[in-house]
């Protein structure tokens, strides 16, 4: 396992894509579900839209670091994606009909490059990129489980 692989997690949710979309796009709740995310807040006016920036604060054990995320795709009920420019990663959420429910998939394609700050954080503070990639994938599963629990409640 290395950092240079696509990370994928998915979950089946007993709710319509619209309901899942509503929970997913309430990004201030994302820190309740994502184990690495402490806070996420929009930088510009206008709410969730393409080119909106979200500032994130992440933490893993004793390390806390800021992220900058630029929304790239907002296709209601189908796809939400943003680029984390500080790490060179793209995070994609895809919703598909699955019977009467929804299949929610989260993917992080192979990063084009790790930026200097991303390399620094991953390499020296997070115990290496490989270990962090495995942990990220686990965190993605926990995030999706959190969304599932919230929507099905």
């Amino acid at each position, binding site marked *: 396992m290395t950092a240079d692989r696509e990370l994928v997690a998915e979950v089946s949710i007993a709710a319509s894509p619209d309901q899942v979309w509503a929970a997913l796009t309430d990004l201030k709740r994302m820190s309740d579900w994502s184990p690495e995310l*402490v*806070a996420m807040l929009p930088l510009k006016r206008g709410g969730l839209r393409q080119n909106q920036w979200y500032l994130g*604060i992440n933490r893993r054990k*004793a390390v*806390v670091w*800021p992220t900058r995320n630029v929304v790239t795709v907002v296709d209601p009920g189908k796809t939400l994606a943003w680029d984390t420019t500080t790490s060179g990663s793209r995070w994609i959420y895809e919703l598909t009909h699955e019977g009467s429910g929804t299949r929610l998939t989260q993917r992080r394609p192979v990063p084009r490059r790790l930026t200097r*700050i991303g390399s620094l954080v991953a390499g020296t503070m997070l115990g290496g990129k490989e270990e962090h990639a495995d942990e990220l994938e686990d965190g993605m599963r926990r995030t999706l489980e959190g969304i599932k629990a919230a929507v099905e409640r």
Partner: protein
Amino acid sequence: MTNPVGLLEGLTLAPQYGEEVLLHTVRDTHEAIAKRVFGILGPAAAVPRVVHDGIAGSVYAGLGAGLAAGSFALKAAGAGGPRLAPSVQSAIAGVIGDRLRDEDHPMHFEMAVRMRGEDVSADRAALTAAYPRATGRVAVFLHGLCETEAVFNFRAEEHPTYAQTLGADGWTPVFVRFNSGLSIRENGAALASLLQSVLEAWPVPVDRMTLVGHSMGGLVARAATGIGGALDWPARVTDIVCLGTPHLGAPLAMQAMHGGRLLKVLPESAAFGRIIDHRSLGIRDLESVLDLPNADHVRYRLVSAQMKGVAGVLLGDLLVRRGSAYGRSRTSELFPRAEVVHLPDTHHFGLLNHPDVHDKLKEWLA
């Protein structure tokens, strides 16, 4: 001076950030401010060093030698980063720092705790080494647009600094440097992250924190404390001291937005007209009233200054007007319960070491 265009090319800055924008803007502004301050304060020798090192002066004063050295160093060191004077680096960052960051340019630098001109990692070992006499009261100093942490040494030759005054009262001063060309909220998020790390790695338990911001630094302090999320440090903050902070925007930046009419009136501001199209996100943030939430448990201490004469009426302390420093306008009152201190007849840098503020700091942070 050697050929500045060539130097800027050596720095791989895009041509539009070249001589015209950077060098002339900064030089003209510096000369105007220096002349105004010079006129008020007396002989050339008395022009405060901080004006040279501060918002405009450092780029101008350092551009020739600094960038010349930087361009050689860049070629030699590749991505290892240029060895520019930090003051030059910070001044350029204030003007185009967001683009330096977006381009992953070697001149971009991350926010960090600073000690004796070097970064200090926010981990236990580094903080313990850097602060052998750390106390449980941490005073965080945040500089303004285009400045570095060195700005808090203003008049250190003649008077104790605020850090020394607080140090004598049991506080441990911590200086932070940041790229002031980034948006204020982004620097706020970086500060929130950094202070969480500092809190957890501090050599002794932290029972009280205060943030002291000069100019834009006060806005970064407010942005950081308002960020929310599961962070422990904001609850330790009892006071935020804002020295000439433009809570309702700064006239230079606002005039830049409104077509630069006033910019042409005063020599201090005339050169800013040139950077209207190139100004950083940090400067753009100063044009508006940022919607930053106040923390209920924090006491806001607001200090403003005003120059005498026409410059004072138009520009307040040269850069920030009194109402903006207090967060007061005809329609809004950002800090209804804040204690305010007005310093007549001083300028935006005079706020950095003033006897009245020393007294107030001792009272507020006892």
